[in-house]
């Protein structure tokens, strides 16, 4: 018995029409499969279209060519099996932390009492049990991310899509959030597609690290398996010898792309 692949991008190409009518190809021929229960991190230089790829998997963007299959079924419209954790603040500012978490159940038509009770449980699970009645602006950046995590997980999506979710946080908070994510993920091992520009974070969290080349027309240029033992502690795993070896190996490939991406972005700035 083979389990179906959670997310499969086959030769996916993503292009945008620019303001002046030219076509900008963001991602070319992306081939990527995430198995059930697998944690895959996509790493690439700034502007390489890794978030674009995530939006394709979410159904927020339609690929110009190629196909997206979710559990072996072609994706049309939004990906209903996926929960999406955004890089920017995406909480509803007019709802309390509790209501922000409960909303996912509310809109499914769950009874209010049950939604509130389960939302409270999830808030406690992300360490914010005492902050249920705070509005997002009364929470710190890290706390808001915790609420966002609970908001996504309460719907129990089969796939978790994360777009540099901890990007705006400071280094220590990122590590704490990474451990929290791993703890929650360990409970039921959803398929995860995690986009980041931080290679260390990717290796520490993921089962597989996928590297993308610098844009435009970026491609997937590498795919490494991370066989570090689970459950992991992000603080500890960074001291592991295997971690260092893998980091050096991947960085050798990534370095050139980062320099290319950097050169392109400065040239573009000069052209303007």
């Amino acid at each position, binding site marked *: 018995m083979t389990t179906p692949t959670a997310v499969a991008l086959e030769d996916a190409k993503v292009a945008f029409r620019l303001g002046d009518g030219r076509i900008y190809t963001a991602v070319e021929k992306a081939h990527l499969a995430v198995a059930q229960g697998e944690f895959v991190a996509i790493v690439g230089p700034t502007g390489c279209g890794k978030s674009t790829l995530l939006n394709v998997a979410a159904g927020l963007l339609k690929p110009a060519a190629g196909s997206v299959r979710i559990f072996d079924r072609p994706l049309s419209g*939004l990906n*209903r099996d996926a929960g999406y954790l955004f890089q920017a603040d995406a909480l509803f500012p007019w709802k309390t932390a509790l209501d922000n978490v409960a909303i996912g159940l509310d*809109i*499914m038509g769950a009874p209010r009492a049950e939604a509130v009770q389960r939302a409270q449980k999830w808030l406690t699970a992300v360490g914010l049990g005492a902050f249920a009645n*705070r509005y997002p602006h009364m929470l710190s950046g890290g706390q808001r991310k915790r609420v966002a995590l609970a908001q996504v997980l309460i719907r129990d999506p089969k796939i978790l899509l994360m777009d540099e979710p901890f990007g705006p946080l400071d280094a220590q908070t990122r590590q704490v959030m990474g451990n929290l994510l791993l703890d929650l993920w360990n409970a039921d091992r959803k398929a995860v597609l995690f986009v980041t520009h931080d290679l260390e974070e990717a290796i520490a969290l993921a089962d597989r690290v996928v590297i993308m080349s610098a844009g435009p027309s970026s491609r997937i240029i590498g795919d490494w398996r991370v066989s570090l033992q689970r459950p992991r502690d992000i603080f500890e795993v960074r001291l592991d010898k295997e971690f260092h070896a893998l980091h050096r190996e991947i960085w050798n490939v990534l370095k050139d792309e980062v320099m290319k991406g950097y050169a392109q972005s400065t040239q573009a700035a000069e052209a303007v």
Partner: protein
Amino acid sequence: MSRVTLLALQVLVAVVCIALWQLLSTVAVFGKILLPPFFFSNPVDVLAQIVKWFSSGVIWKHLGITLTESILAFVIGSAGGVLVGFWFARQPLVAAVFDPYVKMVNALPRVVLAPIFALWLGLGIWSKVALGVTLVFFIVFFNVYQGVKEVSRTVLDNGRMLGMSERQLMRHVYWPSALSWMFSSLHTSVGFAVVGAVVGEYLGSAAGLGYLIQQAEGVFDVAGVFAGMFVLSAFVILIDYGVTLVERRLLVWRPTVDGRG
């Protein structure tokens, strides 16, 4: 500065101004009264007029009328502004077609409409309500339009990914966003509702604060004009305070300017 000192200083400003007014309008300086009573009256007379209005109870009827007109203008104008603002924001084509006309009507000084409204709706309260509505409508309309247009892309995508239907997006995302913009202009729109009512009364009516002021002016009763102005200011301050209370209740989720919750 503590609240008490601040309040004391605020009261002091009023006391000094009124004392100067009283002094300059009753005591001659170098044989000349600087504020002739015919043009400036004096605080004692003004106060006497206000006391007379309240003790005889005539003022309540006028206040009641002005308040009714303001509330009606505010409610009708806001409802219209919210509906049309929402409609335009969700239907860009409609917005584009009507854009020049909206700008044209909004550019028109609303006072010139007063005679037309008086002609159409008579001298009763509805001509004043109509004038207030034309003022309130545009403020609310522009704010709601902006509120719906400027919903954060991410919040919207988040709503979609959480499984919201178009109707649920309307209820949980567009609506609160539009309302928050509307409430942020609450002070302005309530103020304009009062302006519409009073200006309408002033230009032709049989009751209301605007009518009182206009009547006093007609017989060169300067004390009456000032008394009407003071009652009107107090009235507006009270309404404004009420709005602040409502706002605090409704916009708890919004960060305050100084960053404290």
